[in-house]
């Protein structure tokens, strides 16, 4: 039984190695691809490391780009969470709020965040705020949807128990519905984070002068796919790190409580 699992693990490792090998073969080995289209993995690695202390060719180091992207993404994310979670809760709890807000929300939902960029630029200028607003929208939507579901799945039985003890509507919300909703709210936070990161990259591709999105877009213009790929890897790693951090916080928070 364990032998099989071990050999499967080796297969996975082998798979990654084969992938890297084929990549190297196509580029450095057999020179099947033009270096302006597909750089070798070795070059990508070199560039990746180099970028941490070189400002060339687009004007900032990798760290500066990451910092800038994080700044924008997290600002938009925070506002999105602060607005979205309570809104979702209120919509799920108070019928009048839901009946009024939901139609507007449903209209907004299918519009991808990136489409709002021109409007945001007009309203807020070309700096951090306009991008943060776009991210705010994506994050808010995810938070609302999940907080809403979280509250709605409160068991009626539990609410009846609360009512028997004479709890007011507000108390029912705070003491019963909210705790039940926490797992889904946390899911919403996670989804919103991933969405924010994606929205950030999209916004930076279109309207930015720094950040990872900007970096990869610029590098296309100067035919440096090695920077592009290095940038993509950085985007992936940063995104994964953010999600990992959130999961870690989530687990630490849930440690004492049994849901």
């Amino acid at each position, binding site marked *: 039984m364990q032998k099989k699992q071990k050999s*499967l693990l080796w*297969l*996975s*490792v082998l*798979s*990654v190695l084969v992938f890297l090998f084929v990549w190297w073969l196509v580029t450095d080995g057999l020179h099947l691809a033009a270096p*302006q*289209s597909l750089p070798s993995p070795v070059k990508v690695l070199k560039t990746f490391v180099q970028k941490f202390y070189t400002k060339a060719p687009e004007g900032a180091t990798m760290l500066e780009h990451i910092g800038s992207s994080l700044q924008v993404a997290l600002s938009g994310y925070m506002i999105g969470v602060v607005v979205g979670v309570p809104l979702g809760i209120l919509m*799920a*709890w*108070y*019928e009048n709020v*839901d*009946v*009024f807000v*939901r*139609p*507007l929300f*449903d*209209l*907004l*939902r*299918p*519009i*991808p965040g*990136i*489409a*709002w*960029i*021109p*409007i945001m630029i*007009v*309203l807020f200028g070309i700096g951090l705020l306009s991008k943060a607003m776009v991210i705010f929208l994506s994050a808010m939507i995810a938070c609302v949807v999940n907080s809403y579901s979280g509250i*709605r799945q409160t068991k009626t039985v539990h*609410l009846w128990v609360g009512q028997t003890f004479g709890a007011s*509507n507000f108390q*029912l*919300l705070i003491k019963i519905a909210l705790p039940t909703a926490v797992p889904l709210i946390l899911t919403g936070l996670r989804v919103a984070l991933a969405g924010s*990161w*994606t929205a950030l*990259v*999209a916004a930076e*591709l*279109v309207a930015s002068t720094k950040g*990872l*999105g900007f970096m*990869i*877009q610029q590098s*296309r213009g100067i*035919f440096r*796919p090695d920077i*592009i*790929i290095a940038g*993509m*890897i950085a*985007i*992936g*790693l940063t995104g*994964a790190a953010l*999600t990992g951090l959130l999961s870690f916080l989530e687990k630490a928070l849930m440690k004492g409580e049994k849901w």
Partner: protein
Amino acid sequence: MGAQNASKAKRVVGAVLSITCFLLLWQWGTSGTKLGLLMPTPIQVAERFLRSFVDPIGKHSILGHVMFSLSRVIIGYSAAAFCGIALGILMGRYRVVEAIFMPLYEMIRPIPPIAWIPLAILWFGLGEMTKWFLIFLSTFNTITLNVYSGAKSVDPVLLGASKMLGANPLQTMYTIVMPYTVPFIFAGLHTAISVSWATVVAAEMVRSTEGVGWIIINAMEINNMVQVLTGIVAIGMVGYLLAIIMRKVEDVMCRWNKGGK
């Protein structure tokens, strides 16, 4: 508590009320104010939107642009659905396939599909292939994951039962694994359609010569806010319709899942 219980009539009234309030606020906020210098009124947008069915934006009417965007979505989405469902089922059922493809998938997954845009343009130029590739990439991930988790979760008791009843492995695959996975397939397809619509808009905004995303970016370049909002309206409407169609299809295909007690 619980807005689900609101009667249909109340909902309709609420929708009419809130949308009207929103439009009125918008109209009021942009008529003859400073904001009005930057942003158009809803009337202007509505007029431009309706006009663009005959009066083209750029080279095509609004329907033309929508068709371009949709056609890109359909091609990328279908290809991704086909490959994603196949790979997802294989990964879910065969540990060897899972072991080979999972690590590759995990490496690609953290990179948002949008981040592929510059590379895709570098590789495939400014034509359709770039858009197809990007849409394929963004939907393939979602679908494969959903189908994989579905195929993996087939109750082993059911598999045993089919064997007991005399089915060979291929028959089990067709009669048990696939039907069981159908709800998961549709969950994946449902999510993927929204993702693909967002991807095509992004791809078109970065580099394109037509399509709904192009409408917006072009408008931004010529500073035509009415056009921007027209584009947004079109994007929203089509996105909404796609989601609704998907939900209906899902309801029909997964009829047997809905209980009746």
